């Protein structure tokens, strides 16, 4: 028997709003309305300002290490808006602060997290979200589990989980994809391909031409979109969500973007990145092209921009004030949240931590303050 082709596949690329701010009308159908685009532009602007201020807080010693989000706003904005707040779950990494914000996580809590305070991870009532995840590429399995639970419980809705190109190298990424695929769980795997995993470029991370093609192995609908285009990101996410809530199982979206900043405040990308590459991507900035589009529609002008700038300063100022204004955490907190009911050992350690060196009651082992033998 001659050899035959038993599997063929293709990867589509979707861009709706190009770098000059020109919309492809044929694809714009089913994507954002102009009102939504306007809303997302304002959100992205505030988000950018938040990010800049977070960077300054670190530099001035008011916050620890912080991973900047600059340049990746459209991925978070478009996908965040396409998911339903309070219905869908968001399982984030740490470079989609705006998606977290749109789904109910207050910005000041995100700052609190990076200020070394677990209370920044407290999920507000009614918000369906997991705390931002520091270990790379392991949380997507939780999204698969959440989607599976929703299916078992007959709940409508879907899960979106975010991760970077580097995370797709972890074994757990493939485990998550396979679980969601086998169980046909309503999960959207959103890869923010910002092309750099700290200093390792995309082409050293994988020999694959796209990340999107990895989903083919799990027979999962998959697409690469222009991740700096809120219209394309929104539309692809909306389609994936519709598929998920209608029993169509998981989907994969690769949002092509670029990390305009360093990996974190502890990194210096000048050591390993060509400045020309960064400059070229700066011209593809999602904020610039969205603004151009809105201006071309008569929806934006310098006056509106000035007002937004003022509003952003005020909002971000209040966020910082809220984050820095919290009461210092109680030391006892790190004992009190270990279990629903603390074990006797933990209670002992907690109650004696200020009076004893060893976290046990000195009397129990026969210590005497005056140095007498027992």
């Amino acid at each position, binding site marked *: 028997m001659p050899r035959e082709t038993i599997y063929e596949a293709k990867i589509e690329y979707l861009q709706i709003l190009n770098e000059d701010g020109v919309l492809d009308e044929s694809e714009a159908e089913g994507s954002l309305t102009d009102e939504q685009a306007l809303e997302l532009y304002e959100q992205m602007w505030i988000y950018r300002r938040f990010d800049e201020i977070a960077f300054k807080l670190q530099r001035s010693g008011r916050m*620890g*290490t912080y991973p900047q989000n600059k340049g990746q706003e459209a991925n978070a904005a478009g996908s965040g808006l396409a998911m339903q707040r309070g219905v869908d779950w968001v399982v984030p990494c740490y470079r989609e602060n705006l998606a977290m914000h749109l789904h109910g996580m207050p910005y000041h809590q995100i700052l609190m*997290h*990076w*200020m*070394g*305070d*677990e209370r920044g991870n407290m999920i507000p009532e009614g918000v369906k979200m997991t705390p931002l995840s*520091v*270990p*790379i*590429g*392991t949380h997507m399995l939780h999204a698969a589990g959440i989607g599976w639970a929703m299916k078992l419980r007959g709940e409508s809705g879907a899960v979106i989980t975010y991760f970077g190109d*580097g*995370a797709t*190298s*972890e*074994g*757990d990424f493939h485990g998550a994809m396979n679980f969601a695929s086998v169980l046909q769980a309503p999960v959207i795997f959103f890869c923010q391909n910002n092309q750099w*995993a*700290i*200093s*390792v470029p995309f082409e*050293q*991370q*994988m020999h694959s031409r796209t990340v999107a093609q990895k989903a083919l192995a799990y027979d999962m609908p998959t697409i690469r979109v222009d991740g700096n285009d809120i219209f394309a990101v929104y539309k692809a996410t909306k389609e994936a969500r519709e598929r998920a809530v209608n029993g169509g199982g998981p989907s994969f979206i690769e949002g092509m973007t670029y990390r305009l900043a360093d990996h974190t405040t*502890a*990194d210096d990308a000048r*050591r*390993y990145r060509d400045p020309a590459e960064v400059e070229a991507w700066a011209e593809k900035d999602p904020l610039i092209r969205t603004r151009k589009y809105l201006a071309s529609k008569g929806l934006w002008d310098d006056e509106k921009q000035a007002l937004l700038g003022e509003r952003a300063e005020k909002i971000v100022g209040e966020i910082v004030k809220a984050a820095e204004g919290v009461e*210092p*955490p109680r*030391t006892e*907190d*790190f*004992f009190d949240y*270990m279990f629903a009911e603390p074990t006797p*050992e*933990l209670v002992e*350690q*907690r109650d004696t*931590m200020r009076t*004893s*060196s*060893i*976290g046990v009651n*000195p009397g129990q*082992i*026969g*210590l*005497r*303050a*005056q*140095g007498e*033998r*027992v």
Partner: protein
Amino acid sequence: MAKLTLVQAINQALDHEMTRDDRVIILGEDVGKNGGVFRVTEGLAEKHGEHRVQNTPLDESGIIGAAIGLAMAGMRPIPEIQFEGFMGPAYDQIVNHAARYRARSRGTVTIPMTIRVPVGGGIHAPELHSDSPEAIYTHSPGLKVVMPCTPYDAKGLLLSAIRDPDPVIFFEPKRVYRSFREEVPEEDYTIPIGEAKVVNDGDDLTVVTWGASVFQCLEAIDGLPDDVSVELIDLRTVDPIDIDCIAESVQKTGRCVVVHEAPRTAGLGAEISALVQERCFLHLEAPVQRVTGFDTIMPYYKLELEYLPDAERIGKGITECLAY
């Protein structure tokens, strides 16, 4: 003689061994052009070639698993895991493969590999960048676990680790990376794995510790009354433990305090305490005491200094043990 930081001394040892032995290869996330996130491998890719200082995909299990293959096939790999908190995905490869191949194959397949890992707290880092998992790997048979805290010791122990015929986990206390310099000879020298060091001689009490805690202990000892004489032992290697060194000291002093950053329960303090009572029972004047991290998750950095044993808590432990 050049005065080097811990980072520089480790860099010099790596450079030295790569020059001496062309089987040596470094692999890990960001170890190439970027020189590692702590700059420990800085300049090595330029000097020895990117094929010998290989940036890998972001996959800890892959890094260790591939390093095992490299080692089996005649190379001397030095994989780096970026932070101790990211060893989780590599645990299976370390404990179920690297540690077992010699025994599994009755000596016919061996894994000469040195896994370098920054370890410990105190640098205001994010979650999973501040843990102390040395007891976990000490509890796993088939691994040697080293944790030097001075530039001189780090170079000598790293050269021993790379030349060791079996897998070694080489923990680098990140709190000490750039905290001080000391003279480090440029030439080849080794410090045997499993040999502790007496940092301070003393007669009244023995403090056993390792890693960054050595410096908290020194501070604690400085704060004690002048008539209290404390012997301080830096284990340098936590597996195998140099019990001869500890026993000799405790037989002299009769009192022992063990200090570590890791949680208390089933930590190395428990093992050392058991060894001391086995070897020094009739010499002991007081129960062996432990001053350790608590049995909780390492808190985010706002509270990390409350968690880590500091000079005050260690001083209290010494005083309590002396008062028994």
